[in-house]
């Protein structure tokens, strides 16, 4: 069946025989392209399991981060209508003023992440506070009636969910028949609460004990800014009339600032609200946590290369602030890595490495030998071992296993020392190595950090730290290093502890020495003549220059030097490690192409220098120009760039035909020129209409047979 038709635009294809490719088809796709088929299954499984782990981890993180916010909200909600339960005087007092308890939830500009937060909020509310929660979005509520309809629909549906004994049909019918209005909502609420009240003694005790007798009705406005003000105002005014019959609580999701409430609602309306403000965690902190938990652990065998990480962070910082997108990018990295790197089968947990290494095929061994980092490694070995490595598969496997374990150990150490270094650099003035640990991480991945200027300057700054700071930093480092399981850092810890005790000793010594050191200054204050003063000052200067460093300063140098040595030892960039290709994903260009594409640039390149795509010698043209043998559309485009806001089609056509005729081998036979002309005309028409489709020009009525240019300065 063809998909071209002049009468319809949608074509559905249903395979006649229902031979469904089921769940394993993803794996099948995975297998299709990769040249060697043996490990793909395993690779796919590894990839999936890794992704699932990471996904659950991120969800966990998200939950923990939102916990604080949700707890606050829940306590607010329970507070807000506790009076309604007890019918205290305070409640009647408020009832007189008709204030609706309202929570303003400031969530930040990363709107796309809000979904997750709201989903969590819904769950929490339904578990703890009330079954009656409605989530409204601006796009569903163009008018107050739509809003009420949506609201009642959601509330009554959730009622069905709570006690499924209810005859569903009856409710369904009544829902469509009831006119949506506040009184019908109230009568519904009354009937529902009465029912649960009567039921509670008997069977529903345990389930409804979470909620009170008359739980509040929570209405969440997910994107408050995009609601029509009229709708919001009307809803607030109307519902405030009934607040004493219906314990309503509003939650506004706000992306910008709490000011917006007063911007949207006039005072007469906002005075009907009793607003409390809640602030969610900023998305940057969120990202830091994610990076901390996903990248800076040895929990996951998969690692991101420096450029990849940089691309992901940049997309986050400069484009959307969306943590979800960051995680999506991370997922893409994983898939890409396992898809494109045949050796990624070895990118697994330490426990599995041995088994997997020994089941490698000969081809895979060859793949290992082809890795650039492995080649470098081989070159460094002595000749006998070189031959072994290049010819003997089993020897290679042993060696690979060892190297991979080394790599693993390297990671663990790397993370510890990175954190230690971060403790030092994060408190330096001006943050030469960045404030966030992710910046430090990028710097360390990029190249040898100790060779950079920033590192140099930060060391200098560290040499000027005062004692208390230094001591606390050292203590932090000790804690970080102690937490590691391996014995790698036993010596380092000992050394650092030694430094600490030395500092303590210094304190004791310093108190004794103090009075000795003040003498030269004392001398200055004595009365002298000019000559003597000059002399003493010179002496003083002399002595200061050659002054022996104090013990503290000595010790400080020692500490910094020690940290420096640790850095030099452990923070070697990953791409200097052998076999790093197996674990590190470095396809930054691929990633960027997929996530942060530039369609306009691509279009421009194709039109301006077709040679980039069509590898034909005739198209090559130096100096950024364009050959006259280029495809028609390129020539037409190039010609149109020369024009102003309006383009005369006739001129354009003639210019085009001049170019094209020059390019073609002109037939000596002039008689056939008319025929050729027609073809050129047709080609011109095609090219112009293609440009129109691409949005560069549009027909214009300003002058006959003119088109308007739409890019940059067109009308």
């Amino acid at each position: 069946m063809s998909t071209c038709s002049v009468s319809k635009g949608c074509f559905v294809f249903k395979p006649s025989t229902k031979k469904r490719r089921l769940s394993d088809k993803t794996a099948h796709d995975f297998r299709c392209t990769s040249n060697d088929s043996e490990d793909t299954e395993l690779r796919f499984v590894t990839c999936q399991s890794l992704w699932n782990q990471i996904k659950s981890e991120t969800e966990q993180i998200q939950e923990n981060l939102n916990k604080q916010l949700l707890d606050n909200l829940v306590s607010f909600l329970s507070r807000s209508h506790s009076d309604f339960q007890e019918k205290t005087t305070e409640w009647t007092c408020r009832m007189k003023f008709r204030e609706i308890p309202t929570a303003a939830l400031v969530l930040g500009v990363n709107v796309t992440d809000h979904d997750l937060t709201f989903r969590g909020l819904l769950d929490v509310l339904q578990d703890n506070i009330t079954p009656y929660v409605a989530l409204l979005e601006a796009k569903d509520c163009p008018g107050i009636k739509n809003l009420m309809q949506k609201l009642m629909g959601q509330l009554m549906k959730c009622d069905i969910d709570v006690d499924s004994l209810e005859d569903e049909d009856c409710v369904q019918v009544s829902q469509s028949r009831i006119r949506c209005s506040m009184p019908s909502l109230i009568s519904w609420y009354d009937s529902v609460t009465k029912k649960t009240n009567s039921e509670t003694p008997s069977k529903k005790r345990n389930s409804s004990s979470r909620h009170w007798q008359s739980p509040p009705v929570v209405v969440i406005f997910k994107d408050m800014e995009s609601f029509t003000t009229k709708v919001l105002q009307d809803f607030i005014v109307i519902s405030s009339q009934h607040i004493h019959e219906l314990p309503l609580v509003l939650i506004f999701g706000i992306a910008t600032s709490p000011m917006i409430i007063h911007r949207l609602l006039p005072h007469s309306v906002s005075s009907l609200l009793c607003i409390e403000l809640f602030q969610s965690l900023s998305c940057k902190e969120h990202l830091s946590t994610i990076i901390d938990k996903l990248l800076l652990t040895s929990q996951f065998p998969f690692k991101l290369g420096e450029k990849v990480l940089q691309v992901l962070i940049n997309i986050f910082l400069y484009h959307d602030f969306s943590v979800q997108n960051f995680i999506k990018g991370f997922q893409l990295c994983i898939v890409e890595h396992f898809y494109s790197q045949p050796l990624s089968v070895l990118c697994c947990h330490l426990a599995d490495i041995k088994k997997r290494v020994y089941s490698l095929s000969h081809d895979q061994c060859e793949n290992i030998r082809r890795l650039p980092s492995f080649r470098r490694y081989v070159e460094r070995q002595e000749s006998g071992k070189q031959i072994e490595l290049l010819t003997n598969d089993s020897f290679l496997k042993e060696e690979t296993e060892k190297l991979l374990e080394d790599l693993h150990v390297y990671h663990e150490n790397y993370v510890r020392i990175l954190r230690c270094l971060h403790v030092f650099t994060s408190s330096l003035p001006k943050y030469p190595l960045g404030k966030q640990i992710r910046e430090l991480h990028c710097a360390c991945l990029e190249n040898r950090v100790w060779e950079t200027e920033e590192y140099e300057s930060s060391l200098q700054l560290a040499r000027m730290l005062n004692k208390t700071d230094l001591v606390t930093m050292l203590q932090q480092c000790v804690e970080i290093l102690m937490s590691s399981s391996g014995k790698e850092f036993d010596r380092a810890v000992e050394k650092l502890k030694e430094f600490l005790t030395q500092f303590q000793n210094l304190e004791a010594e310093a108190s004794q020495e103090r009075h000795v050191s003040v003498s030269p200054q004392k001398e200055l204050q004595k009365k002298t003549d000019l000559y003597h003063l000059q002399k003493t000052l010179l002496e003083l200067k002399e002595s200061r220059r050659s002054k022996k460093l104090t013990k503290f300063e000595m010790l400080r140098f020692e500490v910094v030097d020690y940290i420096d040595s640790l850095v030099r030892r452990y923070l070697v960039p990953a791409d200097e490690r052998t076999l790093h290709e197996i674990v590190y994903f470095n396809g930054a260009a691929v990633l960027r192409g997929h996530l942060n594409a530039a369609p306009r640039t691509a279009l421009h390149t194709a039109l301006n220098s077709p040679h980039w795509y069509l590898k034909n010698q005739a198209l090559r043209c130096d100096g950024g120009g364009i050959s006259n043998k280029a495809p028609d559309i390129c020539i037409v485009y190039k010609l149109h760039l020369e024009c102003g806001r309006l383009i005369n089609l006739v001129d354009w056509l003639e210019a085009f035909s001049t170019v094209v005729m020059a390019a073609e081998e002109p037939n000596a036979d002039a008689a056939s020129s008319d025929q050729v002309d027609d073809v050129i005309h047709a080609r011109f028409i095609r090219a112009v209409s293609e440009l129109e489709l691409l949005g560069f020009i549009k027909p214009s009525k300003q002058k006959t047979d003119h088109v308007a240019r739409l890019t940059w300065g067109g009308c």
Partner: protein
Amino acid sequence: MLGSERGVVEEWLSEFKALPESQISSYAATLHRKKPLVPALYKVIQDPNNELLEPVCHQLFELYRSSEVRLKRFTLQFLPELIWVYLRLTASRDRQSNGCIEALLLGIYNLEIADKDGNNKVLSFTIPSLSKPSIYHEPSTIGSMALTEGALSQHDLIRVVYSDLHPQRETFTAQNRFEVLSFLMLCYNSAIVYMPASSYQSLCTMGSRLCVSGFPRQHEKRWKEHCGRVVLDPDFMVQLLTGVYYAIYNGQWELGQEVLEDIIYRAQLELYSQPLLVANAMKNSLPFDAPDASQEGQKVLKVEVTPTVPRISRSAITTASIRRHRWRREGTKVRKEKAQLSVNVKRFVKKLENISDNEAQEILEEKNYVAALGICAQDPVGNGSNISGGEVYSFQTPKRSNKMAELASELAQTPEKNVAPDDSKCPEKMAKTPQSSQHSSSNKVQPRSKKKEFVSTTPYRLRKRLAAPDPYLESESEYSASCSEEEDEDEQKEVSAVLSDRKTPTKTKAASTPPPRNSLAKKKKEQKMGNLVEEYFEAHSSSKVLTSDRTLQKLRKRRLDQQTLHDLLKNAPLAYAAEIRDLNQQHESLFSKWMLQLHLGFNIVLYGLGSKRDLLEKFRTSLLQDSVHLVVNGYFPSITVRSILNSITEEVLDHIGTFRSPLDQLEFITKRFKEDSSLELYVLIHNLDSQMLRGERSQQILAQLSSLPSIYLIASIDHINAPLMWDQAKLSLYNWLWYETTTFNPYVEETSYENSLLVQQSGSLALSSLMHVLHSLTLNARGIFRLLAQHQLEKKDNPSYPGLSFQDFYQQCREAFLVNSDLTLRAQLTEFRDHKLIRTKRGADGVEYLLIPVDDSTLTDFLEKEDEDV
């Protein structure tokens, strides 16, 4: 209706007519003494079929128009009843019997909106302010430092306009109906103190009937007469409440409470917040008991009994005074907003400081960003996105009209560089090429000396020189200024002054070989930013468009129609077929990767130059044969989201039935796909950015569709600004993976539907459809159409021909014995209109003009064909 009542009314009617001018005031004083008159009039008004209704309405209007206030009030007391009858009849769609009441109401309205001098009224009141002295205080005695007179004077008298300028109304429409009625109620309320009890009663019954009739609550009422629902407006309801409020405390305690309840009921149903607020306030403030109404005349609610005239402020307000007033009010507003703005700015700055404290590093280090984004440059697999922005989006420079020709000639010469050197005859041929193009254009070939050098500005400039004596060309529009040489020179100077580093080929040079100019892009790069800005304004400053005036018609080349175009292109070989094939094969190798990524929850969007239709088709045929999939041709001119959703629900889900809105349909689809996990659907959309689908709502729906886990979307976009369709929310729903697939394939299918600029429009297709439709019609109908067509052809030289007016057309048709009444003609025209054979439009004078929306040549062809047939 009883005879006696009838007699009373008739007497009243005749009485006033006979009344001399001088006795009107005394007549007004005695009018209220006629006890049976008022009930009789109510009876007349309530019965729409009464033959007395029209004279009564007329008489009431006469009374209202008279200068006597008491006569006015006499009319006004019937206003509630009149409104009720009017609205009831409107709701029942029995408009015919409605006319005189409608006229009366409109008449009163039009009288009331203007004051005596004929100016429009603005009803307003002022709120007193401390700055102006009153009987209670003197501003200067307030005294404290803070309250200086200057400070106080800022709080000027606040005038609150509660009824703005109303325009004169000739007819009731659905839009203005309640505007008029609320204003009438306002007038009634301002005179409510003078109304008799019967009027209050009728006000209350009117209110409750309007609010309740047609709703379930009507069954509780005593009156049973059937009536449909009456649409109400919140403003009108508020006015009604004002009247009812007075009535409640002035004798209509029970009726008033009932109508109050009814209004609340209605307002709750309609979700009108304003009437709800007012009505609830009234209800809550009601005393427990009825006020003591035993003493007639002692009103419980004290109302200042002053004549109505001063209450509605009648001070003559000219437009000038209003303007001043408005201006002042807006001035203060603006000032306030400014203050607020500055506060905001301050706050923002503060925030910025905070941010920069925290994350200065991240935000400001663009260096890294650029570095990271520039990674592609090292990427050997070239996708051409490593160009700096300036190169792509440079401003367009002011171009002289012959620039294109220059470039063309330059390009035409370039083969010297590329073509193999053995091509020795090349220069000669090139010298010929401009001539040949000349040949086709102006057909006046001047015998030119065989010169080797190339005349760069050829076609256009030469033509100008040649065609100068041509009177037709000389009479061309003002835009032909660009053709004159002097101007061109001037302009060139200007340009060269601005862009001094640009080599501008001067006229003298133009005669010789064009100077070897570097490419445009390179030069632009050299220019500094400052120049860029200047260029921008340069490009936008000239309001005149400097292009030549040649048209395709003068070019002696026939327009191609779709079919010949297609044939011609088919014969023309596709350039670089091999390279394009290679390119496509590269893309095809990614197919299985696409499948994988689709299954992992991503959706795929393809961009880049060239039709991606074939690529997607290949993907479909090679990988999707075994699964359910939907192909959408986005470029199809009448594609809608609805049709996409329909094909999913009807053909994929086998659902029979319709949906109220696309959102409902989407909800249904979502539910079905969530319930049945084995359901999977691949959706391929060619040109997601097409005219029909690029709307915000369509994109929202498609995005939501694509976010379903078991719907896999793969789409292509072509337009340069396509990514602007999506905001962050939609992007995250779509979850795109971008793939650059530059194919260089011609957009054959995509542009075939387009009404292309150069293709002869509505050619054979329009003609054949004309013939087809006409053949199925009667002989008379064909004759009618012929008449119209002939008339249109006669007038084809008149560019501002509006069409044939209906009356003239009817006359002609009658003369040709084609129709016998204008009804039959209209019936025929409806038929034509349904088939889009004719178009009607109203001229400035309200006359209907008929036009056949087909171009003249097709019409001529059609008439010829018709003649053959007959």
